[in-house]
């Protein structure tokens, strides 16, 4: 008895071919549905074409608030939301949408792509809000501010200005921070140094050889998320920056010189290292005598450190002018939700920004009170170091466009600084590569979307 393969293999019939073609076309059509529209406009500039009139709109009775709970603020946020519900009758679904700014951005962007499940209010960081703006993901707050009569003039100007573009307000400050100079008072005393932060980096360079009580005198913050942010301090002190608005200045001789000084502090002079984890933790463990970390780490450092912690302004450089960048997160409203939800979301932003709310938030986290009228006496009694952070705001400036407005620029800066500080790479080569990358990001991803 013979069995051949022919009995099971049928030649492809015309019907079969047509069926397969239909299935293929169906699959392709299925694959193409959903996602972005192809060949349309660039979608840039935020959803502000027809400004909504909120005067006749009733706020939604239930909204969602997406937060990453900056500075370990989950409990204080929950308490504030409870107060908000009691005050307004609006129920707030408090959603942990990520454990950091990147994760919440990931979820927010994915929700944009799915066009579903968007919150009424979202926490957005300094490096993310502009991307939401150019993608049209967030609504301008101006009509809502006007409708609810939010007292913008009572917010700290620098923090409000961070979210302005094209004469519109795209978010309002929430968990706002600046970098702060932390020093170990015990180490400084043992080294015979004054109980204060150095006024300039040159001064600290002179002090560093005496600071031998820890493993190293100074710890640069870990690269991820901090290199691009905190090194603006060194660059600005030298009279340069990552960029001058949209012109990248990484290869300016002054920038190269400044970054060479940073590299020398690690390799040639050996008084600094780069932290492989959160430098605030490393500092609190007594590994280094000084570091720069966010004001948002202040409460955690004070609780964890077994020594007396001193804080001060960031050291300046030879060039006069502000050397402290702002940072942290604000609150924004998605463009694609209903006006009712937007109005309720704006009411929540207004409440979270009220003087009492911002003091409660600051007391729990170490972030700065964003309102000038906030009564911080009780806060200062408990944590007097916060005053330094607030005072430093007067000499803070908004960040370089390159860091906060270019997608992925912060990661590229971290990589470049990593090459310089951890692989002793050539400074000029690393910065030349960085400049080219940043220019490419600008020309391909940002410039086409700017009006």
């Amino acid at each position, binding site marked *: 008895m013979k069995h051949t393969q022919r009995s099971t293999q049928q030649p492809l019939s015309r019907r079969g071919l047509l069926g397969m073609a239909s299935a293929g076309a169906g699959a392709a059509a299925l*694959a193409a549905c959903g996602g972005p529209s192809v060949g349309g406009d660039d979608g840039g500039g935020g959803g502000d074409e027809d400004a909504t009139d909120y005067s006749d709109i009733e706020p939604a009775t239930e909204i969602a608030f997406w937060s990453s709970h900056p500075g370990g603020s989950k409990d204080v946020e929950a308490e504030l939301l409870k107060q908000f519900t009691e005050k307004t009758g609006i129920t707030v679904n408090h959603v942990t949408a990520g454990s950091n700014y990147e994760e919440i951005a990931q979820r927010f962007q994915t929700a944009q792509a799915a066009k579903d499940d968007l919150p009424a209010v979202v926490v957005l960081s300094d490096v993310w809000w502009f*991307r939401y703006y150019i993608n049209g993901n967030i609504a301008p707050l101006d009509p809502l501010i006007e409708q609810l009569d939010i007292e913008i003039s009572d917010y700290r100007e620098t923090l409000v200005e961070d979210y302005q573009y094209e004469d519109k307000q795209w978010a309002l400050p929430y968990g706002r921070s600046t970098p702060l100079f932390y020093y170990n008072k015990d180490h400084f005393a043992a080294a015979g140094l004054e109980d204060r932060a150095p006024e300039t980096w040159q001064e600290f360079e002179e002090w560093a050889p005496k600071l031998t009580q820890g493993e190293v005198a100074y710890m640069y913050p870990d*690269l991820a998320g901090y290199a691009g942010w905190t090194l603006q301090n060194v660059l600005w002190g030298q009279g340069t920056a990552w960029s001058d608005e949209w012109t990248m200045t990484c290869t300016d001789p002054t920038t190269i010189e400044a970054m060479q000084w940073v590299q020398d502090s690690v390799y040639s002079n050996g008084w600094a290292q780069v932290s*492989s*984890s959160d430098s605030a933790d490393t500092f609190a463990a007594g*590994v280094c005598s000084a570091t720069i970390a966010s004001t948002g780490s202040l409460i955690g450092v004070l609780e964890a450190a077994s020594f007396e912690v001193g804080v001060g302004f960031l050291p300046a450089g030879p060039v006069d002018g502000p050397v402290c960048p702002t940072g942290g997160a604000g609150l924004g409203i998605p463009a694609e939700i209903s006006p009712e939800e937007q109005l309720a979301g704006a009411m929540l932003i207004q409440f979270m920004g009220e003087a009492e709310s911002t003091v409660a938030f600051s007391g729990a986290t170490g972030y700065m009170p964003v309102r000038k009228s906030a009564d911080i006496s009780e806060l200062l009694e408990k944590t007097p170091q916060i005053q330094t952070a607030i005072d430093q705001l007067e000499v803070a400036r908004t960040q370089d466009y390159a860091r906060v407005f270019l*997608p992925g620029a912060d990661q590229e800066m*971290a990589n470049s600084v990593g090459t310089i500080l951890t692989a002793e790479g050539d400074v000029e080569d690393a910065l030349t590569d960085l400049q080219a990358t940043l220019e490419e990001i600008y020309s*391909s991803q940002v410039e086409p979307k700017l009006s």
Partner: protein
Amino acid sequence: MSRTATPEKTAGGATPEKTVESKHPRRPRTSRRSRRDALVFLALALPNITLIALFTYRPLLTNIYYSMLDWTLGSTSAAFIGLDNYKEFFTSSAGLTSLRITIIFTLVTVGGSMLLGLLLALALNSKIPGVTIARSAAFAPYVLSGVGVGLVWLFIFDPSFGVLAYFLRMIGLSSPQWVLDPDMALIMVMVVYIWKNLGYCAIVYLGGLQSLPTDVLQAASLDGAGPVRRFWTISLPLLSPTTFFLLITTMLNSLQAFDLLRIMTPTGRGTNALIFESYLQAFGGYSRAGYSAAISVVLFVMLIVITVVQIRYVEKKVHYA
């Protein structure tokens, strides 16, 4: 037009040699039965086929479509750019570096897991007290969460206050910058990945070792073959089906390793294997969804090619007992 009827069995079970012409055949009954069979088949298979089509093939096709777009994640519009994302990946130093890291990571972790797993299996195959506990302990890391494992090992590798740095200091050495130095970061994640997965290889190899025919090994022993000779000439060749199975599964797993890399090296400096690079491009700050999709497609094609090559060529060298 004539049709050939389906051969039917006789009462005795024999199939008639001769085919019969069907003039007034029992075609309708056969056809009805075929239709009924087809309906039963569809009733049973359709739910699964639908689910697979929706949740496997649709995303796959969608991903291929996205890979041909210049699309910023979060943007509602995109531009069709054909194969430009692929061109960029294969011509940029960043893309080629990611490919190089993927190859190094896969070769080292597959080789390391299998080799150490085999040695561990040989040790666990011996009749020593407490071997059951040792087997459980060896397998335990495999079932642990990659996130938890990554966080614990980060503490161990910490150059300032990690256990490893402590022991290195005891012998007068300073700790490398495991996270910051890209080369050391790759070594670090490979070590942890092998540690986590070698228990899986060990247990699978142990199963293979315990199913080896004892008569063949005893005969070899009677013929004077020592343990090493028996291992190389009998055990190892007879373990080739196990080795083949492990080669496929560990390679596919290594190529898709993500959790440890993401947790231990969030920036991906030196550890951005393809799947991690795909994540970083879409969600790590760049928001390049189209480019990220292209990297995923490259990985998908690699997985397919490797699997086909293994099944078609490597399996030929496998000895099935």
